Each structure stands twice: as C-alpha cells, then as structure tokens.
C-alpha cells in the first residue's frame, strides 16, 4: 500500500522540482547517472566473479583479520559495499563461509566505503572530473559490445566509472548553480537537534537511493558548494552509514536464515557505530581536527575533513565491535532461528538454496553441493528407518551382524510419506535451482552441475527402490522359513554395510580409505547379487524356498543391486568429484565393471 503511494508521489515531487528549477534537474540527473554508474560497475565486477572474486572470498576469510581486510580491499576497489554485501550474503546462504567470517567482511566493507569519500573529496572535486568521464564511456561502450565476457566485464567497469564521474560532475555543477538561486545553508540547524535531524535525513536519503556511496558523494558536493554546514554534513554521513544497511536487509530477504542474521549484524554494527558517533561527536570532531593538522589538510577543507570523520568513526565502530563478534554471532543464532516444522514426521525444506546464492556461480555451485548432501542425509534416514535399522548403530563401530539386530521402532515407517515430506520438494528445488544457476556458468561448471543433478537423481531412485524392498523385508524378516529369513537379513546387512561405508567416505580425508571403500562397494554389489552368484538357483534347486519366495527374492535383489549402485555413483560424484584433490586420483584408479568381474573370477 505505502509502496503504491510512495512511488507516484516521488515522481510527482521530482516532476514539480524539475519544472521549478533547472539546477535541481542537474543535481537529480547527477544522482541518477551516479546510481546507474554503480549498477554498471557492479555488473562489470560480477562478470569476474566466476573466478577471482569468489575464489578470493572463499580462501581469504579463514581468520578475522583476513575477513576484515577482504571487506576493506574489495569495497575500495569496487567502490560498492552493496556488491560486497550481496557477495557475502550469497556465500553465507550457500554455507561456504560462516556467520563470523561474513560479519568480518561486512565490518571491513564499512571501512572500505570511506575510500570513496577520500577519492571524491581529495580528487573528484579538484579536477574537471567530467572530462575523464567521456573517454571512459566511449571505450567502455566499445568493450561492452565485445563477445568475450572478460572484455564485456571491463567495458561495464569503464562505463560504470565513466557514469560515476559524470554523475559527480553534474552534482557539482548543479550545486554550484543552485547557490545563486537558493542558499540551502540558511536551513542549517545547529546543536543536537540538528545532529538528530540531519542524521535522519541521511538515513532517509540512503534508504531512497539504496546507496550510502551516492549519499556521501551528494553530501561532499553540497558541502564543497557551501550548501550545507560542516556539522550537518557530519550528521548526514552518520545517517548514510545507518541507512546503507537497508541494502543488506533487502538482499537478505531472499536469503536463508544465515543471510538474515548477517543483515541483522550489519544493522546492529551500523546502529552502534552511529550511536557512538552521535554521543562522542565533540571528541571525534576534535580528533578529526588533530588528524587534519597532522596530514597538513587546511583548516577550512571541510570535504577532506568529512572523509577523515567518516574513516575515524567507522574505525572506532570496528574497534568497539571486534571483541563482541562471537557474542554477536551467539546472540543472532539464538534470536533468529528457523521456524520448526509442526507436523509429526517433519516436512523438510531446502537449507542452502536461495535467491541470494544464485548471484554468483561459485556460491550457486556450493549451495547445490551442500543441498545434495542434505538430500542424502534425509535419504540415509529414510533408507535406514525404512529397513528398521538404527542410524546411530550403522555409523558406529559395532559389528554389522549386531547392527541389524537393533530395530528403529516397533513398526516400519511409511517411506512414501517420508519421501513426500523429506525428499520430493528438496529434489525438485535442486533441479529448478540448478536450471537457474547454469545460466551464469561456464561449460565446465555446467558439466559438473549435470553430474550433481545425476547424484540427486541417484539418491531419489535409491529411496524409491527401498520403498519397493520394504514390503518383503517386513514380510520375510519374521518368516518361519529360516532360509528366506536369512536372505532378507543379509539384504539388511548389505544395505547397512553400504550406508556405513558411504558415511566413512563422506567424513574421512584419507584418500586410500576412500579409494578402497568405493572399490569394496562395487565388488560387494556384484558379489552379493544372488542372481549372478548362483545363490538363488541353489535355494530353488534344494527347494529351500517356494517359487513365490524365489520371485520375491529375485525382484528384491534387483532393488538391492540398484540401491548399492545408485548410492555408490552418488558417493563418487558428491564426495569425490566435488573434491579436486581426490578427483584425479579417482579418475586414475576408478574400478571398472570388467575389473570387478575379473577380481571375482580370480577368487572363484
């Protein structure tokens, strides 16, 4: 409702402003061009995110100081804390970095934005910045039309910078000309009243423009033209810092709970920093004056002093908040939690797939890998409980013969119901998400994505095969015929062994263990297939089982064979191919079907 009124009202007010003042038109056009430049710049940097940016983020955030440094450097280079926020939320949503690492990056990004103030105040206002914009726009546009994605990215960055410069130029010109018609400085408000009022204006302006950088440039240009007082400019800068959290909050809306926690951390950090700046404004201003003297900055160079102020109060914010990062993480994890499911079985939804993770190819890939592992965890639960086995016992060191003696519950679970609630939706979301994600991926990544989709399909098919198997497991596990009972016990044992081995593969780092276990699964799948090993013929020939039992056993042995094969394929893709070190070892030492048969023949 408010959005429906707000947007047309803004348009009407702008139209009225344009009608009344040509200078207002120039300032507004300057802001619009500046914002468009930021969009173009973000687009340019995003085209490089398939490699450098996200790889750097993944490997340079393992320590707090590294996270902070990444935030500062990346924001300084890209001149967009919004892009860094989105990137961080995307990686956090995909589970590739932790909340504490994400908070470190966001704190650093806040400090990184101050470089924008320094650049505009120290350089942008002193030279004819518009003159640099023109060649950048021309060369940038030429690059944008190139087919090569890297050149295209360079083109977007150049046009982005060109538009940023042009925007600053128009804002500067607009304020200079505005001075002759209206003197905005006449509306300056002093004291704490002015401090609060202009902080609020700074917040509103940043929320509307969704860019603290744009607000800051507007403040600096207005300050340099003498349209606002230095004191009010400081308050506006504090407001811009608080208002910028809206970008992170909007970005987190489409993210999972981790993304929301990060947005909350960003809000808390900027609120605390803003509060400190307001409470200690006198002391900070004194520190700014002292720093300006040390840096040989003229006493009346208010634009550079504003940049110093911006840097100082963000640095103070970081220094104050660093000792409380773990407390903040703990608080956010406690307060912002996922809604618990209210039905008996528990309807499970995707945990890592979200719109934010789609922003960057590597975060999308990471999210799909994690979600497929999540799907497997659910499948493990269904397969184990479907055969009335205890998960805890399967992954323990207990002898498998003992494991199958423990039952999960008195009656067997309804696999169909579990499938509907814990597999179907996640599987369908993985496929939909993968289709969307591959639009931004390289051919090699699309190939990897295809393999991951196959892994998901293998998991789903293993669950479906378990459903078919369950009926006879229930029927024959307590059957008076000892032969058939024994065969079904062996089936349970075979599945328990498979689940245990996959669990080891998923949790160990030892390459030799992984390679041997995968081969063992392949060999045992063939060895325990009662059709090929002649066991079924023997049971029929000796009339140990009826024809009906034989048919059931034959059908079920196919299901077991399928479950083993599907889950082994899945394990290869999910736990080995996703690990680059193991991938080439597995490629070299992968055991083929012919080799399995030859090994079994040697034994016979």
């Amino acid at each position, binding site marked *: 409702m408010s959005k429906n009124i707000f947007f047309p009202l803004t348009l009407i007010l702008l139209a009225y402003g344009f009608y009344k003042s040509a200078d207002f038109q120039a300032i507004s056009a300057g802001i619009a061009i500046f914002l468009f430049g930021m969009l173009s710049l973000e687009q340019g940097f995003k085209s490089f995110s398939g490699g450098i940016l996200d790889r750097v983020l993944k490997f340079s955030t393992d320590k707090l100081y590294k996270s902070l440094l990444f935030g500062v450097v990346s924001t300084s280079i890209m001149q967009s804390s919004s892009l860094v926020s989105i990137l961080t939320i995307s990686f956090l949503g995909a589970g590739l970095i932790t909340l504490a690492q994400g908070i470190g990056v966001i704190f650093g990004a806040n400090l990184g934005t101050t470089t924008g103030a320094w650049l505009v105040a120290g350089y942008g206002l002193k030279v004819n910045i518009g003159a640099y914009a023109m060649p950048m726009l021309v060369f940038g546009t030429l690059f944008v039309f190139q087919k090569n994605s890297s050149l295209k990215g360079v083109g977007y960055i150049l046009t982005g910078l060109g538009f940023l410069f042009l925007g600053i130029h128009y804002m500067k010109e607009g304020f200079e000309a505005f001075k002759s018609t209206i003197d905005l400085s006449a509306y300056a408000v002093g004291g704490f009243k002015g401090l609060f009022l202009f902080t609020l204006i700074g917040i509103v302006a940043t929320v509307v423009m969704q860019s603290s950088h744009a607000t800051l440039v507007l403040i600096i240009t207005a300050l340099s033209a003498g349209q606002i007082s230095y004191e009010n400019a400081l308050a506006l800068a504090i407001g811009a810092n608080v208002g910028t959290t809206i970008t992170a909050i909007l970005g987190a809306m489409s993210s999972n709970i981790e993304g929301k926690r990060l947005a909350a951390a960003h809000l808390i950090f900027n609120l605390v920093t803003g509060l400190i700046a307001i409470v200690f404004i006198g002391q900070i201003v004194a520190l700014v004056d002292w720093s300006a003297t040390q840096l040989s900055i003229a006493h009346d160079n208010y634009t550079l002093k504003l940049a110093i102020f911006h840097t100082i109060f963000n640095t103070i914010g970081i220094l104050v908040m660093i000792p409380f990062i773990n407390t903040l993480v703990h608080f956010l994890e406690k307060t912002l939690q996922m809604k618990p499911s209210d039905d008996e079985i528990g309807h499970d939804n995707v945990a890592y797939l979200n719109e934010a993770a789609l922003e960057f190819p590597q975060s999308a890939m990471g999210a799909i890998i994690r979600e497929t592992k999540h799907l497997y965890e659910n499948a493990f639960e269904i397969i184990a409980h479907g055969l009335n086995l205890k998960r805890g016992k399967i992954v323990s060191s207990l002898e498998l013969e003992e494991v199958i003696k423990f039952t999960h519950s008195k009656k067997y679970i309804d696999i169909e119901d579990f499938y509907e609630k814990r597999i179907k939706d996640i599987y369908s979301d993985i496929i939909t998400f993968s289709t969307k994600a591959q639009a931004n991926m390289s051919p090699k990544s699309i190939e990897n994505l295809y393999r991951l989709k196959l892994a998901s399909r293998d998991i789903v098919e293993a669950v479906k095969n378990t459903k078919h198997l369950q009926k006879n497991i229930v029927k024959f596990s307590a059957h008076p015929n000892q032969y058939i009972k024994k065969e079904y016990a062996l089936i349970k044992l075979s599945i328990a062994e498979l689940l245990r081995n996959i669990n080891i593969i998923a949790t160990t780092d030892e*390459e*030799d263990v992984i390679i*041997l276990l995968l*081969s*063992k699964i392949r*060999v045992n799948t063939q060895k325990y297939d009662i059709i090929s090993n002649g066991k079924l013929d023997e049971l029929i020939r000796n009339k140990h089982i009826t024809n009906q039992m034989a048919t059931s056993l034959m059908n079920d042995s196919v299901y077991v064979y399928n479950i083993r094969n599907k889950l082994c394929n899945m394990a290869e893709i999910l736990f080995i191919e996703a690990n680059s*070190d193991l991938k080439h070892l597995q490629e*070299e*030492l992968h055991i083929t079907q012919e080799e399995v048969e030859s090994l079994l023949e040697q034994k016979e």
Partner: protein
Amino acid sequence: MGAKKIIKNIADFLNLTNFTINGKKRSLKDLLKKLKEKRVKILRALKNECSEEEEKALNEELELISFHIRKAKKKLEDLS
C-alpha cells in the same frame, strides 16, 4: 624472442610445464605408500591367529589393496 617463447622459457625455468603431471605423480606416490603400509599391516594381522571370518575379510581387503597397488604402479609408469 616472441612472447610465447618467453612464457615457455619462464614456465620451463619454474618447472611449470609438467605441473599437472607432477601433481598426479605425487598424489599417486603418496597413495601407493599408504596402500603398501596397509598391505604390510594386513599381512602382519594374517600371521596372527584370527577367526575364519576375520581371515576371509582380511584376504578380501588384501586382494583389493594389491589390485590398487598394481594399478597405481602402472599409472605411475605411464606418467613417467
């Protein structure tokens, strides 16, 4: 000297030309070492008294390890 030749010379100097192959060889050698250690352990275990079932399981594992040792050795020869 052309740019390509300069890059090639630098790559040769830094031993980067066979980077992938060397990496594979190193991983295979490490794996081979671990497999051999495992084989020794199993052979030692087989010398001790163990039940028929345990002996069967150990022999099966030994077969798999020997198979992979042979395969890894062959791959190493191919890469050399």
